[in-house]
C-alpha cells in the first residue's frame, strides 16, 4: 500500500512540475492515436456505409469478418505490420518501421474495423424506407448518403470514441512497430510498461493517470457533442 501511496504522491509531483519528457510522450500519444483515429474514421465510415447500403453476395460473411476484426488483438496487428514494413517486407521500401508513422499504420489497422462495424450497424438500424423517403424528396445518391450519415451521427460519434479508446490504450502494436525509442516513438502505454519493468512505479503511475485523463477528456468532448446531438 505504501508503494501505491508513494507512487501517487510522486506522480502528482511529476505532473505538477510539467516534466518535459512526460509532456512529449503525452503529445506524441495524442498525435499518433488522433491521426490513426482520423484515418480509421475516413476509411471505416466509407467502407461501413458501402457495406450497409449495398446488397451483394457474401455480405453476411464480410460483416461477420468486420465484427470479428473489431476485437483484433493488437499484438497480431503489430506482428503483421512489422512483417509488412520489415526491410525485406512488401512495404519495406517505405522505411517507416520504428517510426511514429508505423504506429499510426498499426493503430489505424486496429481502429478501422471498429469504426466500420459500428457504422454498418448504425446505418442498418435506420429504417430502409428512410432511404426511399430521402430519394423521393429529390435527393441524389450522394445527398441520400449524407442525410443517412447525419441521421446516424450519434452512433458515428460512438464509433469515433470506440476507435480512439481502442488505440490510445493499446500497447502490443505500438511497442512492436515503434520500438519504444526514447524521444521518438515512446508513447504513454509503452513508457508505462517500461517504467513498471524498471521498478519506477511513481513514473508508471503518473503516466497511467495522464493516459486515463487524456482518454477521459477526449471522450468528454465527444460525449458532449453526442449528447448535444441527442437533445437536438
Amino acid at each position: 500500500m505504501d508503494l501505491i501511496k508513494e507512487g501517487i504522491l510522486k506522480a502528482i509531483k511529476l505532473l505538477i512540475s510539467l516534466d518535459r519528457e512526460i509532456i512529449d510522450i503525452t503529445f506524441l500519444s495524442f498525435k499518433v492515436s488522433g491521426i490513426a483515429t482520423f484515418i480509421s474514421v475516413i476509411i471505416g465510415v466509407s467502407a461501413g456505409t458501402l457495406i450497409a447500403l449495398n446488397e451483394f453476395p457474401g455480405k453476411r460473411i464480410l460483416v461477420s469478418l468486420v465484427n470479428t476484426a473489431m476485437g483484433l488483438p493488437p499484438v497480431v496487428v503489430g506482428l503483421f505490420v512489422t512483417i509488412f514494413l520489415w526491410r525485406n517486407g512488401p512495404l519495406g521500401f517505405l522505411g517507416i518501421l520504428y517510426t511514429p508513422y508505423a504506429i499510426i499504420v498499426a493503430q489505424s489497422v486496429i481502429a478501422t474495423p471498429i469504426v466500420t462495424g459500428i457504422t454498418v450497424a448504425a446505418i442498418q438500424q435506420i429504417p430502409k424506407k428512410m432511404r426511399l423517403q430521402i430519394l423521393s424528396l429529390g435527393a441524389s445518391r450522394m445527398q441520400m448518403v449524407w442525410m443517412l450519415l447525419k441521421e446516424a451521427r450519434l452512433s458515428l460519434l460512438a464509433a469515433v470514441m470506440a476507435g480512439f479508446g481502442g488505440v490510445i490504450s493499446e500497447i502490443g502494436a505500438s511497442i512492436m512497430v515503434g520500438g519504444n525509442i526514447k524521444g521518438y516513438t515512446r508513447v504513454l502505454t509503452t513508457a508505462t510498461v517500461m517504467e513498471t519493468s524498471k521498478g519506477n512505479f511513481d513514473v508508471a503511475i503518473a503516466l497511467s493517470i495522464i493516459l486515463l485523463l487524456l482518454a477521459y477528456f477526449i471522450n468528454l468532448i465527444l460525449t458532449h457533442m453526442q449528447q448535444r446531438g441527442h437533445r437536438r
Partner: protein
Amino acid sequence: MPVIEAKDISVNRKEQKILNIFNMRIKEGEVVSLIGPNGAGKSTLLMTLSCLYRKFSGKILFKGLEVGKDITPFEYRRNISMVFQEPLLFNTTVFENVASGLKFRRFNRKERRKIVYENLERFGITHLSNRLARTISGGEAQRVSLARAFTIRPNIIFLDEPFSSLDKPTKDGLMEDLGRNIRDLKITAIFATHDRDEALRLSERVIVLNQGEIVQDGSPNDVMNYPCNEFVASFSGMETILSGTVVKNEGGIITVLASGEYIDVAGDIAAGKKVILCIKPEDIVLYPVSQKLKSSARNTFTGTITRIVPSRFYQKIYINCGFPLVAYITNSSAMTLEIAEGIKIRASFKATSVHLIKQ
C-alpha cells in the same frame, strides 16, 4: 397526354408475380385511389410508379417520356414526392424537415424560408417550426411529412396509406387539409389505402387491386354501386353476396334461384345463366313478423337473427333466411323492433337494389 402511364408493368419476387399491370394512365390533376386488401400490390405499384423500386419490367412514362430512357430516374424523381405510412422525419427541427427537399434542389436560404412557411401554414403547423421532429405527436408528424412533400411542389404526389396509423379525429382533420391542398394546387395524387371510406372521400377515380392486378377502374360511384366481380363487391361493402341461376326472365325483372329461395332482380339475363347477387346492408328493411306488409319491395323473407354486431350509430344484423342476409339498422330502430339474437324477423329489399354480376 397522361402525366404518368404504366405499360406492361410486372414485378416478380421469389419467382412469384406480385404485380402485373397491363396499362394504367393517370391524367394531370387527377386524384386516384388504389384500393385493395393487404398484399394486393398497392405499395409495390406506388414504389414502381415512383421509380423508388427499380426491379420491374415494363415502361413508366412521365408526360410521354420514358423513365430510364428519355429521362433518368433521378430527373423523374425531381418531379414527384412520396408520403409513407410512417412520417419518417429526420432527426432535426420541423422547419429543417420541411426544407429538406428544397435543400436537395439547392434553393437559397431566403427562398427556402418563404416556401417552407407557406407550406407549414397550409397544414396548420407553423407553430411547430422550431420544435424537434421527434417531440411532436403522430398526427403532427404526418402533417410535417405532408408539408415536406408539398414544399417541392411535385407534379405527382404518391401517398402510401398515410392515415392508417392515426386515430379517427386526427385522420379526419388531416384528410380535410390534404384534400383541400391537392385541389388548390391541382397536384396529381395517387393514394393507396385499404379503407374504402378514405378512397371515396379523397378521390375522383378508384382503382381496385387484387393479387397484383387491376380488377376494376372507375369512378367511386361505379366501383361502390356496380362492382364487376365478387371480390370488388365484397370490398365495396356489399355484405350479402349470393350465387344463383336465372330461372325466369319477364321483361326487366328476372327471378334468380339462390340457396333454395327465389329472388326478384331488376335486369335482363336469359334463363339458365349463372349470376351473382350483391345486396348492400343499408338497402334491407326489417319488420316484425307480426306486421302485415304492403310494400313495393318485391323480395320479402322471414328469417332468424343469428348475430348482432353493435356499432356507434347502427347495428349490423345477421339473418338466416335460408341464405345469409346482412342488414344495418339504427339503434333506435333496433329498440323499436326489440331486436335480439334468435328472434324471427321479416326482411325485405327491392328488386332494383340487387346488383347483378354475370358469371
